[in-house]
């Protein structure tokens, strides 16, 4: 990856030299700006299917917009202490835009990078993390994309279809986004008159145990953005399927494997595109302080999935209007894409 991206500017440089140095370089993108090589740093907290998709989406959007930058992809390997190290490397390399995927990286970047635009991607609570003071515009050199799920809408939908009275929620105590989602869920449950049961885990090896404890205490479980939990999803699915209780997941990618009664959430690739959108606005000359925090609000940002096998086993009838809205249906263990 690194080698290929380093190769492109080298190639362009060669073309430039051989063309005599006066003509404009023929570029791959039509509007490509090749007078000055743009350098973009993208750092994520850990290698993870969802975060990799975000990274891919960001890169693709920038490419589609006609830019052809050099990338410095970094990865903190799950060790939050290295976030500051990556920030200082980007400062030294003088990247044009530093993209931070996940909250700890975003905070470390905002903390130490002061004169390079910082774009955060997939931060669930940017105000709580102190990255911005308002969603209307960025703050100083920082702006980005918020991946908060419409919790209220999702839980209302889940209750409407399944008729649950007690909602279960399992989350990892060391993931900031899950902790901030808990507060929203608590508020929504009080509003809807649902009882809430909560279990916390510390590592993916505890998921099975937490699920076993949870399954008898709730009618259905809500899974929010939680990297640790999703890496052990099969364990939870197994427990809930045997107990014939529905699972609501916000992650489409894992839900496509079957086992989750329903899934409603955004495609991680599209959140990457949204992050890329913010980056491109900066590359085109806008100041981060003027760019509002991008939310996933468009209807086509979201996808809906139903597992009809699970619906049958849980004895739930899904209203036809929701079935019509679904992007994916799983029937007899086979996934069909409708839209």
């Amino acid at each position, binding site marked *: *990856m*690194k*080698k290929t991206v*380093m190769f492109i500017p080298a190639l362009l440089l060669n073309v430039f030299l051989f063309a005599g140095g006066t003509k404009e370089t023929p570029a791959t993108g039509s509007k490509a700006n090749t007078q000055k090589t743009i350098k973009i740093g993208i750092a994520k907290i850990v*290698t993870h299917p969802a975060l990799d998709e975000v990274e891919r989406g960001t890169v693709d959007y920038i490419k589609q917009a006609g830019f052809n930058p050099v990338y410095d*992809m*970094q*990865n*903190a*390997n*799950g*060790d*939050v*202490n*290295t*976030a*500051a*190290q*990556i920030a*200082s*490397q980007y400062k*030294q390399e003088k990247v044009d835009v530093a993209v931070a995927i996940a*909250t*700890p990286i975003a*905070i*470390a970047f*905002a*903390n*130490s990078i002061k004169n390079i635009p910082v774009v955060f991607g997939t931060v669930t609570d940017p105000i*709580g*993390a*102190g*990255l911005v003071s308002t969603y209307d515009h960025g703050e100083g050199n920082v702006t980005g994309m918020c991946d908060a799920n419409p919790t209220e809408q999702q839980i209302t939908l889940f209750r409407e279809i399944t008729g649950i009275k007690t909602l279960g929620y399992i989350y*990892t*105590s*060391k*993931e*900031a986004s*899950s*902790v901030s989602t808990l507060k929203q869920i608590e508020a929504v449950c009080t509003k809807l008159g649902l009882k809430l049961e909560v279990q916390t885990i*510390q590592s993916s090896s505890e998921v099975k145990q937490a699920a076993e404890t949870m399954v008898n205490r709730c009618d259905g479980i809500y899974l929010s953005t939680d990297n640790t939990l999703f890496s052990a999803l099969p364990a939870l699915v197994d427990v809930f399927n045997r107990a014939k209780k529905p699972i609501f997941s916000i992650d489409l990618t894992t839900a496509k494997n079957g086992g989750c009664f329903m899934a409603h959430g955004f495609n991680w690739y599209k959140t990457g595109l949204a992050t890329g959108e913010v980056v491109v606005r900066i590359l085109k000359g806008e100041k981060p302080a003027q760019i509002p925090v991008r939310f996933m609000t468009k209807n086509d940002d979201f996808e809906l999935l139903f597992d009809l096998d699970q619906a049958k086993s849980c004895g739930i009838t899904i209203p036809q209007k929701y079935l019509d809205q679904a992007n994916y249906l799983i029937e007899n263990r086979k996934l069909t894409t409708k839209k």
Partner: protein
Amino acid sequence: MIQGILIEGLIYGIMVLGVFMEFRILNFCDMTVDGSFPMGACILAACLTAGLPPLFALLLAFAGGLIAGVITSLIYTRLRIPDLLAGILTMTMLYSVNLRIMSNKANVSFLKIPTVFSGITKYMETAVPQISSDWGLVLFLILTVAVLKGILDLFFHTDFGLTMGALGANEQMVVSQGVNPQTVRMIGICLGNGLAALSGAFAAMYNGFADVGSGTGVVVSGLASLMLGEFVLRSNHIGLQTLRVLIGSAIYRGLMFFGRSYGYKVGLTSNDLKLITGLLIILCLALSNVNLFTFIKEHTTRPPKSGCCKTGAGDVS
């Protein structure tokens, strides 16, 4: 980049000083550091969000580390649980404690809260805008770490410090001097963890957040730094030994920076960094001729009932 290496080298150097006290001076394999390091960060976060002055917060963080040390040494001496396991137990318990300290939040951001570091950065930006504000941090850390190192060196020259030095090498000698080795060891473990917690608090200020997950791999990085230092500078003099701890820490951070920045030239990505770290430690161990089997055996056997040689065969009941 050089500022980054120096800042990180010094911040984590404080933790490596703690690791040095426990692993080298006391010959005590203490994994508590993986828990006391984030504990320092968490205490700092809790204090700062409560509006306490930053310096007081740092002192409390140090005190928190001391308490963690007391727990580990009590588990070791009173319950006679092997040092490696005692440390792992405290570290595990500290995870929950740390979450409580931060009111069950996983990550507390300091972007809107003034810290010692953000104060220095702001001052540097207004007073000397032509120099990178990082140099202000470097200067502050050099002064802080120099004071800490000075105090430690003085401590090791006192009678008590010398006894502590003797304890790791020959426990029987300490006993025959009429000193209770358990007390000496406890104080050493406390200081080591206090230093780790202080280092965690500094790291949190530098990162801009406190995170409960920040303790992962801290002991390993500390040991690697320690061994790199020992590899570079061979000496029996305590002043040089503490100095080489700091040098080792800077080298370790420098290597990490280097791997991250230039690793791609030999086809290494940032995903391979952990492998490099591991290989580095193995290399250092191999070069410094540590016998791995005796090392593991020594730290997984039950400690003696009271005041006997740790490694002495036969007197372990």
